[in-house]
């Protein structure tokens, strides 16, 4: 497979290079290089973005955490600001591949690859992440736009990114006091892709659930939120029976299928159990009493 490549040193050069026909972004390459090897991807031109210093950052600014498109998973999971504020994100990153993969792969790449079973989207959705996209804006310079992560996925392995656009960063609001998040997944062995994964985020007010965000992967064409579960929880007083009942409603939010890793029936049955576990852990981390 032949292709051209470019190694831009800054964002302007990268966006210029991405205008070429058949141009595609190369970051860590842990998905794309495999796809090229098996002829599943046939890029004409690879634009390598990990040489761009202005994309390589993990910073807390004001009330949010910003993760640049160049930040590797390994850098993110060991970043002090992330470890202390977003333990559930670190847990989701930690199950991805081995150390080598996490030293290479980026969080933005995991999102852009848009696998329905990817491990970071559920927790990012639960944490209300936004994506900042950039593109060449002609005389106006680089154009930036933001959207909620939920609106970024448009189908299996598909996103709303247009030719010439690039994810600039992901933005996560810092979780307030009395909040907690958790991640759960099932896979055959530890390096496997998940049969199913899910994440929960809860904001607690006394013994009530003020706000809940639940998201799952590998149960629909894209990673999905679980509004039926969320609605059943919000404003209610904590109780294990409430969590049982709310988790059971997840069937309304998902549409699992049979594939090489699992069956629709198994995924449907196990989803409510995983959601329940994630909810209980998130509640505990939010300081809630049993």
């Amino acid at each position, binding site marked *: *497979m*032949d*292709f*051209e*490549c470019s*190694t831009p040193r800054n964002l302007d050069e990268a966006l210029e290079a991405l205008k070429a026909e058949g141009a595609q972004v*190369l970051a860590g*390459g*842990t998905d794309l*290089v*495999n796809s*090229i*090897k098996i002829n599943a991807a046939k890029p004409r031109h*690879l634009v*390598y973005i*990990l*040489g761009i210093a202005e994309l390589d950052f993990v910073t807390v600014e004001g009330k949010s955490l910003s993760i640049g498109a160049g930040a590797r998973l*390994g850098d993110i999971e060991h970043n002090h600001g992330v470890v202390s504020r977003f333990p559930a994100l670190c847990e989701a990153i930690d199950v991805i*591949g*081995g*150390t*080598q*993969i996490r*030293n*290479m792969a980026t969080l933005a790449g995991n999102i852009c690859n848009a696998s329905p079973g990817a491990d970071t989207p559920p927790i990012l959705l639960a944490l209300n992440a936004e994506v900042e996209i950039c593109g060449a804006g002609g005389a106006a310079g680089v154009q930036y736009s933001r959207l909620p992560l939920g609106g970024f996925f448009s189908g299996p392995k598909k996103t709303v990114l247009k030719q010439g656009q690039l994810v600039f960063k992901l933005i996560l609001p810092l979780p307030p006091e009395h909040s907690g998040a958790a991640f759960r997944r099932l896979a055959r062995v*530890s*390096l496997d892709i998940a049969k199913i994964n899910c994440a929960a985020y809860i904001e607690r007010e006394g013994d009530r659930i003020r706000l809940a965000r639940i998201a799952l992967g590998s149960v629909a064409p894209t990673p999905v939120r679980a509004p039926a579960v969320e609605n059943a929880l919000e404003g209610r007083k904590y109780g294990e029976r409430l969590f049982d009942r709310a988790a059971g409603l997840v069937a309304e939010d998902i549409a699992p299928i049979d594939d090489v890793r699992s069956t629709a029936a198994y995924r449907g049955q196990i989803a409510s159990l995983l959601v329940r576990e994630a909810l209980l852990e998130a509640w505990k981390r939010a300081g809630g009493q049993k």
Partner: protein
Amino acid sequence: MNLSITLNVNGKDYSLEVKPNEILLNVLRDRLELMGTKYGCGIGECGACTVLLEGRAILSCQTLAFTVDGKRITTIEGLEQDGDLHPLQQAFIDEGAVQCGYCTPGMILSAKALLDAKPDPSNQEIKQAIRGNLCRCTGYTNIVRAIKTASVTIKNRGRMKR
């Protein structure tokens, strides 16, 4: 279109012309004749092709050579110093952590990255660090023990120097 790149491999500088689709593993093996780095699964699951890039473990079979232009790479050939094996290499021999040997270079490099960052790892941290390296014959017990032994050797040597 060929690209000119430079690599520092095991302390030695190389200038090379590479094609955009050339994989680092092939450059190391076929062009620099460093055969220690192994081709295993080719899809990033087995870790046999592990090398250190700026001291961190990466998969050379998943890395396009042009993306590591100007970087420092360590392969298994770079661990021995003046004919003396690295403590990890010696410990793998002493603890019987090598059988067919195919996973060994990658396993040792993953272990080196771990010990460089964390000189006194727990067994759990060792297991976590080599999760991306598959062994299909020796088994992991002796490998984990070898890494532990090497960490002690390195620590004792540091003491002797002081």
